[in-house]
């Protein structure tokens, strides 16, 4: 039996899990809910692995048509899946990391009520389903269904503890921000349909379809699609939802807001690289936005004290790196970084979850310290994650980040410089986080210290697996300069082209050397600075600006939220109360007044009736005899 026959099971299985957990949330015990939720994802992973093997062996499984989804006169949108090298890779990331996080969740969420527990797994399964739909979809519409689905699940899971008003607000913020991006995506799709009359990848990304598009069309469509990507992948200016999204349970942050959902924008652009390669202006925009996001988020992360916030800004920053790669046409590097980032960022989020679990819900690193003694596995795996994200040679992050930096250098050395600076900041804040949290003396309460413990196996096992992956994950893409063959690029070649420009090996050695040396300096500096960390008072000067995240939230509040509120209250108080109510009441008053005035006609006097009758007859005669068209 061919594997392609099983493909439909990949998204369906999590959907079944969602239905079971969602409908049976009051009946199922925690064990059953956890087992069901994890097993379906594991099964999907197994099938995805088979599919991946099939594709790697060279059997191409192209587009699979299930049924006609929307059929209009000229437009025919099928419910298609497109399984190629790119989507099979994403399938592996989603189901693989997803399974580990499900497993982790069974332990992490164990203190919840069984009803909420099943609800949590239902949402998580729904998310996996939506994300799979997003990457498997054979046209933009199916992708959009998944795109909206993950946004919904993100909303549901951020607001999982919906009784807390702040969390609910965070969920709303994420939803609204995502909607803004989704609107851009949707408009881009409409534009594409209007100009090419088709939406299927196989038809859009052909030279025939592209010939129909003028330069303006391509720039417009790609910019709109990129707006969608900025929403989903948390880029300037729509990134502010992601740090707030840390209100959700930590495994959710790991899965949705680090490893998978936020990479949807990367996936989409990589998928549409044919379009984006044509749109040079859009590529410049993506480059600038990506780099700016990477720098801005990294600078904010330096001063954050919430362990999850640091990781969140780190995620935003890393996503900026990926967009930088996309903007420089280095699609393989972006996908490569998605892969390695999924490993080490999920690892660190799960590690932070483990820490939070041990600290009894405490998230402020100022109250931690010295946790390495109590939580050996967590500490070591977290360190591996930090080394990976910093780009220490030998760890996965080194290869992917180096590829991005090399691509940036080939494009423009200034880009390289700025990106390197962001990378240095990354290393600095990650080690600041590590050192403050895991070394030194414990600064929390005595009770918390007593409570400190290593997490159970269901939490540490994913940590270990992800740590191993964080180390070896990069070896699929060893650059030729280091004697490898970059197997990932070779694998992806049919779906995503390799970057056109190639640096000579000497330059690459130089770049690697520079970045590695500087990163090491940065790490050592961070280690020395925070070795004997004591919580300071309020930050001052520039530090305060960073601590307050460049006041971007306040800026948005001032220039968007406030005018909107003012407009709303204007509409509500003036337009609605005076205008619309005025019209309604005015109609009533006019009728009232008119009827009072007309009442004298109904006088009961025979003479008056006769008079009116005569006037009526007179009028009719005039119309009859003198109105020209009668």
């Amino acid at each position, binding site marked *: 039996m061919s594997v392609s026959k099983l493909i439909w099971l990949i998204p369906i299985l999590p959907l079944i899990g969602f239905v079971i957990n969602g409908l049976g949330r009051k009946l199922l015990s925690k064990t059953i809910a956890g087992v069901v939720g994890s097993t379906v994802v594991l099964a999907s992973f197994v099938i995805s692995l088979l599919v991946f093997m099939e594709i790697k062996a060279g059997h191409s499984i192209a587009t699979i048509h299930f049924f006609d989804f929307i059929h209009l006169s000229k437009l025919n949108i099928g419910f298609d899946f497109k399984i190629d090298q790119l989507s099979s890779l994403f399938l592996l990331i989603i189901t693989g990391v997803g399974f580990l996080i499900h497993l982790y969740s069974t332990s992490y969420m164990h203190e919840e009520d069984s009803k909420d527990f099943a609800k949590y797994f239902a949402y998580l399964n729904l998310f996996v389903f939506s994300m799979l739909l997003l990457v498997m979809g054979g046209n933009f519409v199916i992708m959009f269904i998944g795109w909206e689905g993950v946004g919904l699940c993100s909303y549901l899971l951020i607001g999982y503890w919906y009784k807390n008003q702040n969390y609910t607000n965070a969920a709303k913020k994420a939803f609204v921000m995502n909607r803004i991006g989704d609107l851009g995506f949707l408009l881009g799709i409409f534009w594409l349909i209007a100009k090419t009359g088709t939406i299927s990848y196989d038809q859009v990304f052909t030279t025939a379809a592209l010939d129909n598009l003028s330069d303006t069309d391509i720039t417009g469509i790609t910019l709109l699609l990129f707006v969608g990507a900025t929403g989903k992948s948390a880029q300037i200016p729509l990134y502010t939802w992601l740090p707030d999204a840390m209100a959700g349970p930590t495994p959710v942050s790991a899965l949705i807001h680090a490893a998978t959902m936020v990479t949807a924008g990367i996936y989409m652009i990589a998928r549409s690289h044919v379009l984006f390669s044509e749109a040079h202006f859009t590529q410049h925009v993506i480059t600038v936005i990506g780099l700016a996001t990477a720098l801005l988020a990294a600078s904010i992360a330096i001063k954050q004290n919430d362990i999850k916030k640091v990781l969140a800004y780190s995620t935003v920053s890393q996503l900026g790196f990926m967009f930088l790669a996309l903007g420089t046409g280095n699609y393989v590097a972006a996908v490569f970084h998605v892969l390695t980032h999924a490993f080490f960022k999920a690892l660190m989020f799960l590690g932070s979850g483990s820490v939070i679990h041990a600290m009894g819900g405490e998230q402020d690193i100022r109250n931690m310290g010295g946790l390495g003694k109590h939580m050996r596995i967590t500490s070591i795996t977290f360190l591996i994650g930090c080394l990976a994200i910093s780009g220490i040679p030998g760890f996965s992050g080194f290869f992917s980040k180096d590829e991005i930096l090399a691509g940036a250098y080939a494009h423009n050395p200034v880009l390289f410089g700025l990106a390197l600076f962001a990378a240095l900041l990354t290393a600095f804040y990650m080690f600041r986080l590590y050192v403050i949290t895991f070394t030194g003396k414990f600064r929390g309460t005595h009770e918390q210290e007593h409570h400190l413990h290593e997490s159970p196996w269901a939490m540490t096992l994913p940590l270990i697996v992800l740590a191993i992956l964080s180390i070896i994950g990069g070896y699929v893409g060893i650059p030729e300069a280091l004697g490898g063959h970059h197997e990932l690029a070779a694998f992806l070649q049919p779906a995503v082209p390799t970057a056109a420009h190639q640096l000579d090996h000497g330059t690459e050695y130089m770049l690697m050397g520079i970045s590695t040396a500087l990163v090491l300096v940065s790490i050592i500096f961070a280690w020395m600075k925070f070795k004997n960390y004591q919580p300071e008072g309020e930050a001052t000067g520039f530090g305060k600006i960073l601590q307050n995240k460049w006041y971007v939230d306040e800026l948005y509040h001032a220039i968007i939220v406030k005018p909107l509120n003012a407009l709303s209250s204007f509409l509500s108080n003036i337009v609605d109360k005076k205008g619309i109510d005025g019209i309604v009441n005015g109609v009533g008053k006019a009728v009232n007044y008119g009827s009072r005035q007309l009442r004298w006609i*109904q*006088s*009961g*006097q*025979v*003479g008056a009736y*006769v*008079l009116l009758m*005569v006037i009526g007859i007179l009028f009719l005669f005039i119309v009859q005899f003198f109105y020209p068209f009668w």
Partner: protein
Amino acid sequence: MDIKAYIALSLTLFTIGIIGVLVRRNAIIIFMCVELMLNAVNLLLLAFSKMHAMSPAAKALPTYASDAQIFVFFIMVVAAAEVSVGLAIIVLLYRNTHSVDVNFLNRLKN
């Protein structure tokens, strides 16, 4: 004589009847104005009858020219019956209100 002269005469009489109805409040006078209007119509009917008597079609049917005159006759019959009932009503009005003012006929209002 042209038919238009008769039409104009009838219209004038008819309109005078209407004006009478409008300007007077005495029920009896109003009633008389109605009679005047009826007579104006009768005159017009007869004039039309005589107009048709000039046309060749009148020769074909023996009663063609006299139908309208029969009609006028019946109108008079109906008018006589109407007057008897109408005057009875006016007498009743007078008996109830001691007046023949139609403005007292506004009980329908409430």
